[in-house]
């Protein structure tokens, strides 16, 4: 209680600072570099997230795409500073509006949690505290960071509920989470995350548990809020279609690594990593009923058992010796120019740098990057 009171002035100041530095559209809000997360298990420490790098821009949505266990949620939690006790942030920078969160102590980070960065979880039922009214939970951020009293916080909560489209907020503010439908609970979660107008919103599978009609509503809400607040949104999902419809750029993760990134339209139209390509082909669309789907054989590697070299080598149809020997770094790929691939032959001379290069371009637009020795060939193929 006391600490919260002490924090109040400081956080208010921090908040004021944020408002002043409110990002313009397309400004880089968050820059992640070399992010690595370790998990301690009985088999020793395993690296769940490895050399992850991406950036999120104001007013845009970055999708972190990947299958279960690929490290995308772990990455989100590392960004938000709410990792499990068995996980450690091993390496990397998380630069949010000029501050490296990774270098802060947990207590210092608390000032950023809320005013600068909000997170939405997948399971709205467990993410809401069942024993408090939604009003109490919605108002908490205001009480912590702005030092409001219960009454003022309640008004703010009602305001928030209006913003996210919950009907009759005045009466429902005193209801408990279980009295809401799944979609409404998700709205509440979103409201909670955007309460203090953060510059970055992380949405971890926000619609996975929802029906498609509700999912469409939630996505619409997220879009609206993003545009209103010029937030940078990191959307974590496994759903290719959602990425295609909602995101501006995408980072595809596999076994703790980003294997490909770039603007969504480009990546989906012309995947430069065999995994991305495989995923896209797994979707049963534009196919005759009952026709064989082009599935990816096998399953992802165990995290404690990731082979040296390319993480995708065991499932890759075009694996070669170098893939087993050397891990390809995430590096910019040239946009496909007809006929250029064969001519410059870059695909045959794999890059030697094993360190990831953060794919930032000078013009403020994300560039295409892939972590494959033969990314150019895929394009051609």
């Amino acid at each position, binding site marked *: *209680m*006391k*600490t*919260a009171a002490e*924090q109040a002035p400081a*956080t208010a100041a921090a908040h004021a600072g944020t408002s002043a530095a409110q990002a313009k559209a397309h400004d880089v809000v968050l820059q992640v570099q070399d992010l690595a997360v370790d998990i301690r298990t009985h088999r020793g420490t395993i690296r769940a997230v490895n050399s992850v790098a991406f950036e999120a821009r104001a007013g845009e949505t970055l999708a972190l795409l990947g299958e279960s266990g690929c490290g995308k949620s772990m990455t989100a*939690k590392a960004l*938000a*500073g*709410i990792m*499990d*006790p068995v996980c450690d942030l091993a390496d990397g920078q998380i630069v949010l509006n000029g501050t490296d969160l990774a270098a802060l102590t947990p*207590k210092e980070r*608390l*000032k*950023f*949690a*809320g*005013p600068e*960065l*909000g*997170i939405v*979880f997948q*399971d709205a039922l*467990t*993410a*809401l*505290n*069942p*024993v*408090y*009214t939604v009003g109490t939970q919605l108002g*908490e*951020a205001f009480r*912590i*960071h702005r030092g409001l009293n219960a009454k003022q916080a309640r008004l703010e909560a009602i305001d928030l509920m209006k913003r996210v489209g919950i009907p009759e907020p005045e009466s429902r503010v005193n209801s*408990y989470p*279980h*009295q809401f439908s799944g979609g409404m609970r998700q709205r509440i*979660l979103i409201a*909670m*995350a955007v*309460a203090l107008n953060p510059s970055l919103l992380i949405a971890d599978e926000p619609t996975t548990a929802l029906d498609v009609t509700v999912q469409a509503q939630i996505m619409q809400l997220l879009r609206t809020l993003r545009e209103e607040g010029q937030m940078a949104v990191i959307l974590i999902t496994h759903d290719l279609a959602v990425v295609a419809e909602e995101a501006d750029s995408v980072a595809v993760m596999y076994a703790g690594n980003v294997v490909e990134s770039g603007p969504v339209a480009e990546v989906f139209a012309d995947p430069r990593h065999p995994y991305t390509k495989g995923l896209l082909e797994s979707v049963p669309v534009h196919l005759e009923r009952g026709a064989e789907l082009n599935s990816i054989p096998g399953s992802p590697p165990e995290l404690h058992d990731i082979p040296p070299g390319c993480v995708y080598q065991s499932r890759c149809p075009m694996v070669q010796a170098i893939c087993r020997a050397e891990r390809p770094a995430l590096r910019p790929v040239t946009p496909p120019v007809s006929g250029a691939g064969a001519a410059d032959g870059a695909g045959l001379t794999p890059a030697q740098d094993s360190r990831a290069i953060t794919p930032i371009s000078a013009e403020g637009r994300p560039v295409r990057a892939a972590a494959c020795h033969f990314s150019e060939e895929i394009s051609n193929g």
Partner: protein
Amino acid sequence: MLIYLRKRIVSSALPLVVVIVGVFALARMTGNPASLYLPLNATQQMRDDFTARNGLDQPLLVQMADYFGGVLRLDFGQSLRTGQDAAAMALRAFPATLQLAATTMVLAVVLALVVGCWAALKPNGIADRISSFISMAAASIPDFWLAIVGIWIFAITLGWLPTSGVSGASAWVLPIATLLLRPFGVLVQIVRGSMVSALSEPYIKLARSRGAGELRVVTHHALRNAAAPALTVAGDLTVGLVNGAVVVETIFGWPGIGKLMIDSILQRDFAVLQAAVLLTAVAIFALNILIDMGYALLDARVRPVTVKA
């Protein structure tokens, strides 16, 4: 809520009757009290007189019918031992037990919450290890032994506290301390367990993501969720105290219902036994309702109106 209460009362009435019938029948299986109340060389005539006077010569069913008839008129019979109204004796003894139990449980719960939270903050940490050892030891010491050692140390050797009795606040210390240890030990483990699991819930992470500090997370978000299992167990433990602080009451001369019950069992004072059992059973039943209401206060999901099949 009223409907719910009414339902609870109706559904608890039958077990209550079963308990009383059981006590009634079992008590009479422990033999005729005549030899306890008559002189050793009492004649058969005296025994027969005694038996007849107390209606013990009737068939069990007749006795039971008489008894329940009396209960309906709020006549719970008379004590063989003291000749007093059985219900009055039970009612007189009950507050002493209730006060002892309530004070003990409040203290145990508060202490257990503090220690349990402290232990849960760093699972398997040093604090956790220490508190789990203490709580296990606390829960496994025979209470009568503890009481006597307590008297020896604090009343005789140190002279800080009175040995026994009910006079003055200081007389409460030893009985409460004795009674406290087991509930405390059990509750610490429960609170610790449910705090650990509560602290790993997504909503805790979310609270942290809103900038809630450690203290706020623990006292605000986790504690109330962790309180429900503790409440159940505290309820069971309170039932135990209400029903069976016999040992402590015996040693400290605490004029409570446990002592009354064991005395009336050993003295075959049937009417008092029945009154005491009935009273505690009603109290336990009331306690259970209170616990349910406590649940509802803690957690809106279990409020009876919203309960689904």
